[in-house]
């Protein structure tokens, strides 16, 4: 594997290191949720984090998105060390995410929810918005166009004006993805995008993830429990167990890693 990247099995060119986690340790009181973990995410790649329940995967994602600040270790983004940041500052650097338990804004319509994804891009000040006509309205329209493209892309046109609270689970997951995409992120974090879905919905979601990666060139890091999906989708996989990293590599390498089989897959296949 060269520093300039590598070529995947299906012929995609993967770029240099975008996000580099170095020696991350995260504690809650006396509990170590993450123990000295290092791994990287490369430009254009689909990177999976897997592991049994309580392995620390979601905590890891929360560290990347700035929700938790690790006690030890460094986060490097685009070749620069990232100082401790608030989550909204991280979002403005171009990192968007979805949540394990859907975190949509229940009181707003689908369209408004997706529009919130554009908040990092909308710059008009309070006065301009109060006047509305002119700058604020133009900005709104321009952003609306971007959002409508994403709505088309994820095939949720029909429910645009529906309050999110009324939607079924599978659609909510899709709206959440739309909201994350609306930010046009460089790095997209997906926390169990397929949890609780049936086979058909999983297929749809997998297709969307691949399309996002393919069409927008978005780098994706995802947590997922469905092994079949992970092995199919991802270019490289990090395996975590009890807060430690026990494996890292292509799906094939991970599948044949003895420690991973013992700690994780072995148990699952018993």
């Amino acid at each position, binding site marked *: 594997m060269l520093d300039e990247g590598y070529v995947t099995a299906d012929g995609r060119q993967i770029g240099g290191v975008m996000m580099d986690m170095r020696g991350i340790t995260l504690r809650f009181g006396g509990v170590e949720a993450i123990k000295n973990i290092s791994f990287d995410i490369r430009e254009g790649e689909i990177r999976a984090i897997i592991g049994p329940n309580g392995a620390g995967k979601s905590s890891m994602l929360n560290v990347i*998105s700035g*929700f938790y600040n690790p006690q030890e270790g460094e986060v490097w983004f685009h070749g620069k060390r990232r100082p401790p940041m608030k989550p909204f500052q991280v979002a403005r650097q171009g990192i968007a995410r979805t949540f394990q338990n859907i975190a949509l804004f229940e009181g707003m319509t689908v369209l408004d929810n997706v529009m*919130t994804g554009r908040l990092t891009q909308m710059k008009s000040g309070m006065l301009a918005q109060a006047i509305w006509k002119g700058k604020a309205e133009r900005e709104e329209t321009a952003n609306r166009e971007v959002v409508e493209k994403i709505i088309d892309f994820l095939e949720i046109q029909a429910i645009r004006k529906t309050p999110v609270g009324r939607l079924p689970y599978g659609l909510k997951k899709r709206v959440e993805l739309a909201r994350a995409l609306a930010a046009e992120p460089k790095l997209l974090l997906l926390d169990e995008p397929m949890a609780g879905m049936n086979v058909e919905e999983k297929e749809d979601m997998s297709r969307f993830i691949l399309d996002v990666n393919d069409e927008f060139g978005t780098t994706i890091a995802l947590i997922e429990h469905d092994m079949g999906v992970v092995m199919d989708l991802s270019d490289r996989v990090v395996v975590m167990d009890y807060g430690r990293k026990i494996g890292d590599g292509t799906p094939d390498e991970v599948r044949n890693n003895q420690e991973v089989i013992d700690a994780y897959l072995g148990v699952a296949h018993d």
Partner: protein
Amino acid sequence: MLYREAGDFKTSYPEDSQTFPIAFDRWRYWAVLAIAFLVIPFVINDYWASSLMVPFLIYAIAAIGLNILTGYCGQVSLGTGGFMAVGAYACYKLMTAFPDVNIVFHVLLAGGITAAVGAAFGLPSLRIKGFYLAVATLAAQFFLVWLFNKVAWFYNYSASGQINAPERFIFGTAVTGPSAPAWAQYLVCLVFVTFCAVLARNLTRGSLGRSWMAIRDMDIAAEIIGVNPLKAKLTAFAVSSFFIGISGALFFAVYLGAVEAGDSFGITKSFLVLFMVILGGLGSIFGSFAGAAFLVILPVFLKIIGVDVLGWPTEMVAHLQLVIVGALIMFFLIKEPHGLAQLWRLAKEKLRLWPFPY
């Protein structure tokens, strides 16, 4: 044509996101404005102005203000009375310090001062959430009222501790003071209401409004998608207090004329405006009007029925009013948390599809 949506296609995004997407609503909106501006001023008399129209308009501004904070941004405040007092006293100090400046600027500036005070008291909202914050805003309520009662500078060392609105003119007509005609008082309040409502609508439809609603619905998720909670909450406090300050200034200068902080801006005022917002509908500007209208009309209505028609003691009717308002609050929270505005919206949704609901 009464209500029509099918076949009313929009061809551009601005058209789709306008305030009243349905043509019939647009017509009605202009009709209401026309009546309010062109008809009512000519027919209004002192009784209608002082018992209904002027308090309705002023409370509507306060309700819009609180609705922005509570209904849109999800931060419950029990300090509305205190912030109205800031508006009133700021307006009074400005009126007496700069008698040559037009009252309109005094009122607007009073709103601006209240916005600054509101933002300062909004600072704890970063650490404190939910009803902890609601209780914390009581600190603003009690402290501000105490301040205006105790520090004589605020009431220009007057012997009574009251503040009295001097006479001020707009285009040669008195709008404050005892000789101000009813129609002028009404018209001044109407202009401010219209201004505030349009401002509130614009601020809630764009990115600022969305960041408020995101904080309201799920603050953690909002922060992770890029909303700066400090900015969102403080702007909500500031904008909300701006409106509340204007309403306080008008309440003092135009409506009452003479004010004592504890009597006019006590905790009951905070609850009254909160009730308007709950009954009218959280997160709805139309609801702010509906709630204000309802709670201004109710006592007048009860007084006419109870005291004038049935001959009951005034005191008893007042107690009955407490029972009714309390029961209504509970009823609406159980049955329709989005208030009168939601009832209206549901009726409209039915009408839009009528006569083919399926």
